[in-house]
């Protein structure tokens, strides 16, 4: 090997030292995992969803394990954006990695306000707009499942900030490409996908739903094929950087996402199996580049779409 291997990747204007982030809601505000490993090694941290007002979240139980998956109904418990800015952000700025703030609103206006408030704060790499929230004013319909409402949220956030806007798509839709196109047209710089799949679990002994909130969001390895499919589809149709997530637990999963079209990836539920998995994935990607004499990870983005470049069956004989 002569040239240095590079894991550097660019999500639009945002340069990441490597393509491995941690997913919103699974890493808190980095306080806890900071005690387990040097967070500066990560490509970036997507902090837990922040709302305009503090939120208590959903009644417990909030978690149930499913086959190779996890259903959660945290309900966006968070201290609100003002507390976040005062108590969490100063520390986050000094972590030595890119900070992406995940924002959630329950009306269009809330998204706009959040964007404006955070726009004034230095040290943020991007806003990640979680559009999987119910629009309280419109009967609780989720913003992210219709192109119009998804675009409306994006437009307001875009107007409210000069920060890069990453819109995080909900997978609970008929046509992910339609939504992706709508939010890109409305000004998104990049897309994150996927958020969780809507699911439930029943306790047959108690004869009732396990989660206090009945419905939860499914994440983890179980959803990986669906996440990859959506990345694949959006990559083919919408020219915008993608941050892929959904069931990544090792570097081969990360490569699947990158080759399907992701510019960067995030580990969420994978942290719960092995808190050090993001670091191991970074190492694994490095090893893969070295083994295959690829100089940069960016060469692999979308590689699986290119049938001519696919590596033929093991050439034994």
């Amino acid at each position, binding site marked *: 090997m002569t040239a240095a291997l590079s894991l550097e990747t660019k999500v639009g204007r945002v340069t990441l030292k490597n393509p491995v982030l941690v997913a919103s809601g699974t890493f808190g505000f980095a306080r806890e995992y900071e005690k387990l490993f040097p967070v500066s090694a990560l490509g970036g941290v997507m902090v837990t969803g922040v709302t305009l007002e503090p939120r208590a979240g959903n009644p417990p139980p909030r978690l149930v394990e499913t086959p190779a998956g996890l259903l959660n109904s945290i309900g966006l418990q968070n201290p609100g954006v003002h507390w976040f800015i005062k108590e969490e952000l100063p520390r986050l700025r000094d972590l030595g990695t890119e900070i992406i703030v995940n924002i959630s609103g329950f009306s269009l206006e809330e998204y706009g306000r959040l964007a404006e408030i955070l726009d004034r704060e230095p040290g943020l790499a991007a806003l990640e707009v979680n559009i999987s929230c119910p629009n309280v004013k419109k009967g609780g319909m989720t913003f992210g499942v219709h192109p119009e409402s998804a675009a409306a949220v994006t437009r307001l956030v875009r107007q409210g900030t000069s920060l890069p806007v990453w819109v995080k798509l909900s997978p609970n839709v008929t046509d992910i490409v339609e939504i992706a196109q709508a939010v890109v047209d409305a000004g998104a710089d990049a897309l994150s996908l996927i958020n969780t799949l809507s699911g439930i679990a029943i306790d047959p002994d108690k004869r009732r739903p396990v989660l206090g909130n009945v419905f939860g969001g499914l994440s983890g390895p179980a959803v990986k094929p669906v996440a990859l499919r959506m990345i694949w589809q959006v990559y083919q149709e919408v020219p915008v950087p993608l941050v892929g997530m959904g069931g990544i637990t090792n570097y081969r999963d990360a490569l699947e996402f990158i080759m399907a079209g992701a510019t960067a990836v995030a580990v969420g539920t994978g942290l719960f199996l*092995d808190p050090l998995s993001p670091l191991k994935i970074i190492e694994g990607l490095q090893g893969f580049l070295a083994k295959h004499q690829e100089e940069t990870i960016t060469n692999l983005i979308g590689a699986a779409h290119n049938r001519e470049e696919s590596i033929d069956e093991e050439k034994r004989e």
Partner: protein
Amino acid sequence: MQPETAGVISLSPLGRATDLYHLVLAAPQIAKETGPGQFVMVRCTDEQALDPLLLRPLNVFRFHPAEGRIEIIFRVVGRGTAWLAERRPGDYLSLLGPLGRGFSSLEKYRRILLFAGGTGMPALFSLVEQETKTDSSLSSSVGKSIMGSSAGESTGSPMGNTMDGPNREFTLFYGARTKDELVFLDLWQAAGVTVHPATDDGSAGFHGTVTGAAARFLPGEFDFYCACGPRPMLRTVQEMMAKYGIPGELCLEEAMACGIGACLGCVCETVHGYRRVCSDGPVFPAEEVKFS
């Protein structure tokens, strides 16, 4: 708190009729840091398998910083614990720990009531062992399972343990489904604790619940209590003790994902709102916990 690869030193079923197991692990770092009432998360899956997905929280029953060992008692209730029960000496386990805020120091209290239900026992024993700590001779029962020694009777020195200075007195109400599940009574006795067993089937001690067993001793002259066990038991204990105005602590359980306070998945309701069982607890001041 850190990930640690722990070697299985011994794993033994606790008796004929139970699905309880006693696990002794070499985990020097965790052993060094653990306090009473803390727990570890254990990966209960083959290396590359993804189901069951999450680590399992298990209380530390005993910790031996000098020997670099911890002990766990667990019940086989599902897939993860079934997997765990099949490990053998020499196998390795992925652990994360020690985790959580354990019991407060009992320094200020003299007469202490303990309520243990089933696998709630280990957490309370870690507390008592810490509070009565003497020379390390006690830890010689590592890997040895002794059960049911005169389980039918209340045992221990009536005036409480003597190793702990003249003043400290522990009274344990220990409930289980059946006599065979009352395990390690000898250790409790050696620690000088007065043990009142209770069994659901009446096969040993009081025929009924631990709160039933405790009722006739109350209000008594107790300063403080600690309880660990199933939710319905904790609720009853909390009510009963509130009635008598005795303060205490409850050790809770809740399904967990991260185990370290990051995911907000394991919350319980308290007078201060939702609190994380894994990091704000698992031990909470009894009067703060709200059972819905």
